[in-house]
């Protein structure tokens, strides 16, 4: 018996010795932040979840250039969906071509139907590599609109957006958005707008975070911080989870707000998928998601979609 125990013990110790030389780290693993930041967006899908929790998952076609950068996107048809493009009329398949500069930064994001450009976004950068100018052109609500945003930075963060807009019916007065951050965690707190009323009759005056319910598709709502128009009852919640600078999922939905006006759709903006390739892009992404939602849908009221439908964009990154 004693010998048996001794033999078993020796066997165990040999196993232990062998085990000590083992490792769980493989050569192909990403072992530092630099290597991690080089991961590229490989694919994404759009999951539209209705208030009954039913999902409609749509894969988005992607192709890449020789440097592994996302070059072409083939979009599914979004007819009747909660999620779509800001452009007014889309009759055929939609594709996007993305152009990069020599530094690997996106300079043109062109959304086309056939050979016709529906929405064209032109990006410019300052010496620090921060996005300092974004020109958005397209036919929105029947008008050809060109918006030029000049982005200023303070302490490395976007602090102000100066906007000028021209349309087929004339130019709007310049608008200045001041981005303010939460002193506790540095998250975006408000987008203060000056002047408080635009000359096209838009009456909203302020975009800010509030406290309300998240679009969780459950009867019991989680508390979260949706973005809303000050004094208004309409809210848009934006949630995202991420590692480093990589978003895993972006979740868009309204708050549970029975008395409020319901946005009919959420509009796509390139920063939703370009967050990882644009410096300090999170506050800008939030700003443009709210902005696109507000411009097209919030003021025109709801339509056929349910108030609490949720759109979730799931991202996959890879080497």
């Amino acid at each position, binding site marked *: 018996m004693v010998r048996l125990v001794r033999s078993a013990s020796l066997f165990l110790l040999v196993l232990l*010795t062998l085990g000590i030389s083992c490792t*769980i780290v493989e050569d192909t693993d990403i072992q530092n932040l630099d290597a*991690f930041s080089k991961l590229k967006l490989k694919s994404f899908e759009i999951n539209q979840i209705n208030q009954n929790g039913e999902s409609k998952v749509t894969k988005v076609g992607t192709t890449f250039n020789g440097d592994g950068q996302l070059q072409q996107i083939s979009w599914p048809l979004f007819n009747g969906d909660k999620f779509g493009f800001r452009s007014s009329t889309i009759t055929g398949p939609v594709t996007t071509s993305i152009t990069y500069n020599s530094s690997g930064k996106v300079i043109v994001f062109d959304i086309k139907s056939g050979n016709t450009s529906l929405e064209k976004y032109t990006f410019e950068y300052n010496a620090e590599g921060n996005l300092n100018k974004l020109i958005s052109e397209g036919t929105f609500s029947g008008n050809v609109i060109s918006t030029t945003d000049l982005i200023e930075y303070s302490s490395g963060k976007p602090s102000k957006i100066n906007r000028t807009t021209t349309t087929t019916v004339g130019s709007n007065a310049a608008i200045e958005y001041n981005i303010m951050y939460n002193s506790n965690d540095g*998250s975006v707190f408000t987008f203060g707008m000056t002047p408080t009323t635009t000359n096209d009759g838009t009456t909203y005056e302020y975009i800010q975070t509030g406290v309300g319910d998240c679009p969780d598709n459950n009867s019991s709502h989680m508390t979260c*911080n949706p973005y809303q128009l000050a004094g208004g009852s309409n809210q848009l919640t934006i949630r995202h989870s991420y590692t480093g600078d990589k978003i*895993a999922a972006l979740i868009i939905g309204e708050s549970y707000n029975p008395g409020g006006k319901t946005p009919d759709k959420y509009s796509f903006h390139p920063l939703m998928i370009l967050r990882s390739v644009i410096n300090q892009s999170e506050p800008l992404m939030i700003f443009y998601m709210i902005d696109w939602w507000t411009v097209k849908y919030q003021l025109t009221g709801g339509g056929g979609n349910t108030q609490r439908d949720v759109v979730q964009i799931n991202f996959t990154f890879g080497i």
Partner: protein
Amino acid sequence: MMKRATTIIILLVGVCINSRAQLRLPTFDIELKGQQNLLPGSGGSGNFDVFESTNWHGGAHIQIGQHFAVGAFYSRSFRGSDHYRDDNNSTSATKDGLLLLKGIDIRVSTSRAKNWRKYMAINYSKLEVVEDNVDYRLAAKSNAIGASVGIMRKLSNKLYLTVIELGVKKLSTEIFWVGSNSQVIVDAKMGLLYNIGKRK
């Protein structure tokens, strides 16, 4: 260096086990435990929340008198996960995680009482953490210094049950996807310890 020292210690122990000589010293023990680990993140919106894993922990110690023991351990997870919070502070993403610990420790214990025996230990370990994202894996290595306290119950002359052992480890380098605010692992262990050799 640590690996070589560990190997020598364990081989020495092995030689002693199989020695047919009457010299029964040193007395030693082997242990097998389940170990639950937690690496808390900074929390808050949009941040890494917590890494947790369940490990098999094996170890062997040479006993020096009644109160001291020196040995090595190896602990490897058979399950684990990384949890992230979204920017509204609700847990939103979970990834598979792995944790490996291997190192040496010194244990100080009370005398062999009739039933209960308390002990504390300090340890030095090499640590590896992996997060599996299916398409790619994140991995990091660090050294860690730690301490633990525990209590075991005597089941027989040679067999003890570690009722609970609670420990904490301080990492020397940050896990890059976890953040600099999270460099402490806390753990809890339960398992068995078997004494081999002459009872002193």
